[in-house]
């Protein structure tokens, strides 16, 4: 049986564009915003926060686009399992915890995936991507463009976050 078409898709690119490759997520969101299909919502922020749960709950699937400090190059695309993990801090939240909030607070089973784009330089201030990260960004964009046309998220899983 084929997978039902997931109509309402939310893409959240997050990270700090002022910290070099940490800005990969927002950079992809910016590129995608101009070309995304009408049933795809694109958002960008410095980091994930709890109120994102309310927006995610209104979608069938959410793709978290983030810079990855390790894992498969040029990117990996992995499903996210909702979890109830708790961090000491505070002001940001992981994709798994966020989906846990969606499940436990909003009673919705939005599917979640992380598109982790491999970055290399994080420890300086600067509004630029490293050359290798810029290449990875374009590869990730092509991948996401195709994915948003075909909508077969489960089949697209690739790479490792380790």
């Amino acid at each position, binding site marked *: 049986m084929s997978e039902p078409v997931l109509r309402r898709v939310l893409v959240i690119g997050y990270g700090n564009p*002022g910290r070099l490759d940490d800005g990969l997520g927002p950079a992809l969101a910016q590129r995608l915003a101009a070309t995304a299909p009408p049933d795809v919502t694109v958002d*960008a922020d*410095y980091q994930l926060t709890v109120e994102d749960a309310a927006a995610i709950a209104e979608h069938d699937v959410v793709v978290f686009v983030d810079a990855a400090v390790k894992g498969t190059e040029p990117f990996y695309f992995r499903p996210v399992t909702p979890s*109830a993990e708790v961090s000491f801090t*505070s002001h940001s939240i992981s994709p798994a915890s966020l989906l846990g909030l969606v499940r436990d607070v909003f009673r919705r089973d939005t599917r979640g995936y*992380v598109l982790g784009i491999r970055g290399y330089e994080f420890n300086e*201030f600067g509004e630029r991507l490293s050359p290798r990260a810029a290449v990875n960004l374009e590869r990730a964009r092509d991948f996401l463009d195709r994915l948003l046309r075909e909508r077969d998220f489960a089949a697209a899983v690739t790479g490792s976050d380790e």
Partner: protein
Amino acid sequence: MAQTTEKLNRVAIEPVTRVEGHGKVTLLLDDKNHVKQARFHIVEFRGFERFIQGRPYWEVPVIVQRLCGICPVSHHLAAAKAMDVIVGVDELTPTAEKMRRLMHYGQTFQSHALHFFHLCSPDILFGFDADPQIRNVIGVIQQHKDLAVQGVMMRKYGQEVIKRTAGKKIHGTGAIPGGINKNLTIQERDELLQDLAQMKEWAQGALKLAKDYTVENLDRLADFGSFPSNHLSIVREDGAMDLYNGKLRALDPAGGTIFDQVEVPRYIDYIAEEVRPWSYMKFPFIKSLGPENGWYRVGPLARVNTASFIDTPLAEEARREFKAVTDDKPNNITLAYHWARMIELVHCIEKIDELLHDDDLQGTDLVRTGERRSEGVAIIEAPRGTLFHHYKVDGNDQVVMANLIVSTTNNNEPMNQAVRKVADQYLDGHKITEGLLNHIEVAIRAYDPCLSCATHALGRMPLMVQLFDSQGNLLDRQTR
């Protein structure tokens, strides 16, 4: 300073924490196994000031948002205020001033709501001796789902206010030197009015929860990580709480005035920063009192202590109740931060209410100009406390000097004091127990420190506690 100063220098802060970020606490014992010193290491970025240098001044209100992904609006507004001075504007148009205030109250509202419902409320609802497996936001969701939902929706409301005043979340451009680049449309106003009554009701509920908890547990809280301290904030000319604009006031632990109505550009005559070899983060202090006695607290507790009154009725009533507990003297109870924070939460939603009913927000006179100046200083009360921005700009419009003192830096020494007090009270032998970790967490959380400035990447943010004996030997190390 501790007796083992030469050994203290061996404690290193790993630069990699800039990517993952964590809260690291080092406890140093004396010969009698009492906690001689506690060090709360926070990774603060060096080099941001250099990053700004050479940029045209009008870019700064946007660029500084890169400093902190948690409170970009505070930096945006502080930089814009400093650049108002640079462009020679001492008074904004009513529309510009009120739009900025609306943005600021929205930011503070969502920040305080997030902290209370998702960090503080587990401690209050379950008690801070409770198992951390229960004492967390998941426990709140399971047992008090209504509160968890309120936390998310209040945070969302504050973000909606920000979106309509600052523009995009990641590239807010609302405030510009000399004013603002948009007003609030009737449609935007009406959208924000829709949920206002609900937000006010929830804010009052949170205030009651925080107040009742503090009053019912007053004896215990009075001894928990608490200590007398100075308190600093800006206040309005008539002494009222003002989170957006004002002059500096500092009170001593008994409520005596250290200084008052200090003009913002003169902060440098009153505040200095001490460098300690074990920390990247500086330790600000009041010059006239010196580094030993001049450190001070900032943030909600300090602001409710320093304010002569609050100019919104519900928050003022709450402030009076708060002050009555300490006979109108400053409240020095660390965990009273939560109560004070909720007083401000109510104040913010009252202010948002007031502003949304003010026609000036639909005005079209947005920007003023003046005669260019070479130096600008601004202070704003960010959610976590007093935030200083100071810039010099050359004849080519480029920034040549930037100095920022952020809220968490201002609370640096108080957080160390709180951890030392708690650790000395709850350390049993040479082991870091779950109970000790719990209590250190609770004490640090009261200050709502910003630990993950500027970057996040994928990864968790643990709390790590290390215990050293008087000879500098590592006795125990625990991470949560």
